[in-house]
């Protein structure tokens, strides 16, 4: 008898670790964004996506709510808001 033994690449993305987030989540205001990409680069989870100004977003399926994106944003265009429900969607 065998239990779960091996995992194929990218299968681990099926583990929606954003469920670990308990307190706050980044909210992208989409007002003063200059597309400097600092939030995308600094995100320890690599869960920030986007290219154009005012079009960046964090994938809450993986975001842990650490807040470094909001902290580094030079335009203060990301607000950390209180987690409403333990959601897995955007």
């Amino acid at each position, binding site marked *: 008898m*065998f*239990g*779960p*033994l*091996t995992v*194929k*690449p990218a299968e681990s993305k099926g583990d929606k670790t954003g469920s670990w987030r308990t307190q706050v989540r980044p909210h992208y205001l989409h007002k003063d964004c200059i597309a400097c990409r600092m939030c995308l680069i600094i995100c320890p989870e690599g869960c920030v996506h986007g290219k154009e100004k005012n079009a960046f977003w964090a994938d809450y399926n993986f975001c842990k709510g650490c807040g470094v994106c909001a902290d580094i944003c030079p335009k203060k265009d990301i607000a950390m808001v209180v987690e409403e429900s333990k959601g897995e969607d955007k």
Partner: protein
Amino acid sequence: MKEFIEGSHAIAQIIKACQPGVISAYPITPQTHIVEDLAQLVANGELKAQFVNVESEHSAASVVLGGSATGVRVYTATSSQGLFYMQEVVFNIAGMRLPVVMTCANRAISAPINIWNDQQDSISLRDAGWVQIYAEDNQEAVDFHLIAYRLAEDKRVMLPVMVCMDGFILTHGMETVDMPEQEKVNKFLPNYKPLYKLDPAEPTSMGLLADPDYYMETRFAIQETLKASLGYLSEISQEFNTVFGRNYKDLLVEEYQTKDADKVIVAMGSVCGTIKEAVDQQRAKGKKVGLLRVITFRPFPYARVYEALKDVPRVAVLDKAVSLGAYAPIAVEMKAAFYGKKKGPKVISSFVGGLGGRDITLESIDEVFRRLTAKEVNSDFIDLKPELLKEDTRR
């Protein structure tokens, strides 16, 4: 072909016949001769394998884990502190269901440092998920390695096997051994085909994080597989008998003069040779005594033990290891085998002997039979020297 050969050399020869692709080991007494020989065989080109020299047992175990994960047959050997240094990886190997075969040349555990034989090292790793088979003599030690690979690589099993042989007594003992011929080995042990492997062409990950949603099933699967392995061992031993002309019953336990016995000793490993001699002597005097030798300690053959001893009134369990502060390891299993059953011995007394290489002689065995009375004893040490147990007054 029959050869007069040292145990370690015989093991190296049989491993050569099994043709592992990767061997890694770190020398430790009394395992040294085995891996020295294998290193020589590889260096001479007689064995086409990669022998990886490492800086520690932890690395040796890690190398065979990795080697096995890439889908080749692997081998390692160790003893005592070396096995303990491997411990973390030993559990990983079982958890990743890799069919590693290891020889454990049984040796006592520090401190105080002691290089001589008892069975504390492998017994202490009984919960690791490995199959543990204990050899009585060098013929068995050789044969068990073949059976170990067959069982480990069986698609129904895929678990590591530890072949345990008493350090020095077997590893350094010269005996006549019927060495299996290469053609027969090839017939009995086909090339290893892994269920899954690490392959750049088809990437996969093994042994990575399993959170509370996944972990328990991995353990349950090993538990069930080990229980089922008792049957597979019997099956494989029958096939082994056919190919090599031996006479192993099932490789779980050996019953020696137990049928009509009043008193039976239960033991494991090379000491059983001495016990058989003692049994013969006592039988010659008309005493109904016998021996039940446990061959496979993990998985533990509870049903076979029950069948063998259910009508024996008194049983003495002789452990060459201790679980300090509790019942001795084999004694625990013996009591468990009869708990709540209708039949079974009135007395199961537990004795501890032979620690750190102290000889278990015919007199020691007679002493065990003498102390096996209507009064049950637990972890009763035999051959103690009371004069060494005085309080230290030198301070």
